[in-house]
């Protein structure tokens, strides 16, 4: 079961995040849900690089050559975290400005120009 659990948890996060986005009635809440979708990618990447009975890929106390998990996916997730935080900041800025213009944050009360 543990073999499937990481992938199922990732899929669950993806699905529940998308559910939140689809049903959200507040842009700030929606941005939070987007973060949930993103955490699915963290879980996938880190679990792909995991290895039983291996240490972190930092050879500080232990010498190089001891079994270690994959450092590459960890570097990818670091990049991913920056992307998530900055996109969230940008989205929040958009939401704040939109609230100034329209006085509401409800996506369904908004109609872009036709």
């Amino acid at each position, binding site marked *: 079961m543990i073999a499937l659990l990481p992938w199922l948890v990732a899929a669950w*996060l993806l699905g529940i995040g998308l559910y939140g986005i689809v049903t959200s009635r507040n842009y700030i809440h929606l941005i939070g849900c987007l973060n949930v979708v993103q955490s699915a990618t963290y879980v996938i990447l880190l679990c792909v690089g995991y290895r039983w009975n291996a240490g*972190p890929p930092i050879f500080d106390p232990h010498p190089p050559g001891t079994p270690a998990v994959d450092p590459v996916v960890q570097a990818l997730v670091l990049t991913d975290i920056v992307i998530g935080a900055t996109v969230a900041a940008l989205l929040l800025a958009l939401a704040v400005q939109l609230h100034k213009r329209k006085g509401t944050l409800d996506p369904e009360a908004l109609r872009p120009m036709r």
Partner: protein
Amino acid sequence: MTILLALLLLLTAAAGAGIVLSRDPRRQILAIAGNGLALTLLFSALQAPDVAFSELAVGTAALPLLFLVALVSVRTDRKSDL
């Protein structure tokens, strides 16, 4: 180790659902911080201290702060409906 990982994965799943299901943005900020903490724990268990560290800095501190500040900006706005 297996049990711990499984529990942490389930905790992450629950924390993610928590963000989605807390529809009130004020309460959602707490959920976001909680999710950051859950992810931090999961990442440490997955032997990724570097990532856990950034998730701690970003997910539990910077991101909730950003949401908080944005929420305050929205509430400062005169036409507020929150």
